[in-house]
């Protein structure tokens, strides 16, 4: 909150903008294919407590809305 006031109370310098953005540059973990992850888990001792079916790709995947709010 204090920091917010510091920013808002001062003229925003170009250096401030550059620094703020630069400090958020962090490499993200690469997203894995679901099927690859299942294989990986099986190879490394998938404990069976989580049903492999819960990671199954929806058989109707081509007919649903891929970016809807639903699961």
């Amino acid at each position, binding site marked *: 909150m204090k920091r*917010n006031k510091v920013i808002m109370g001062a003229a925003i310098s170009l250096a401030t903008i550059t620094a703020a953005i*630069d400090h958020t540059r962090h490499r*993200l973990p690469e997203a894995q294919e679901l099927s690859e992850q299942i294989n990986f888990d099986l190879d490394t001792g998938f404990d069976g407590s989580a049903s492999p079916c819960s990671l199954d790709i929806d058989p109707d995947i081509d007919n649903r809305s891929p*970016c809807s709010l639903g699961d």
Partner: protein
Amino acid sequence: MHSSAANTLLSSLVGMGEINSNPVLQVIDGLDSISKEVKYPKGLLQFQGGDWQAFYHCHSNTNDIQHLFDNEHGHFHIFAKVAEDKDEWSHIVALSMNNMGQPLRWFMVNHWVTAGVWLEANLLSRKLDGIAYSKQDTLLTKWLLSMLGIYKNELSGMLNKRDQAIESADQASFHQNKQHYLLAEQSIYLEQKLQSIAKN
């Protein structure tokens, strides 16, 4: 609005920078491994008093729309509640992110992609006008809301372009036609955008 949104955006960026984070690291909550097609966070992101929802995900199959996903790690989908008393949602825009957690572009998609309720551009632009910042906002929701705030004019223009694409198609089935995925897009140059606001 731009100046207020820019300040909110900067404060959220500073806050995330202080903890070596960024919007995507925030939404995946520090996970070392994430999966394609899974929506993050679990239970989705709810904000603005429950009037907005968002999630982040990465696609597996991008063959048909490859250019859209060049250099992309994944994207946020942002939805607004249609009406106070209804649990119905309308997709406003998606926000593409690169693998360093930085915004790449806004894009708007056809109805079949996101489902939900389809609202016309003017109604969605009003949702953007109604954005307010509160103490309940997290670094991530502040970032999302202020991104929408500083790009409000551009997003309204994209919404109009989206609707024009549909009108010009002149097909009743256009909304569900899977040949048409992308309806509008715009690249993001955040540093330049903030600099232009700061100068004015």
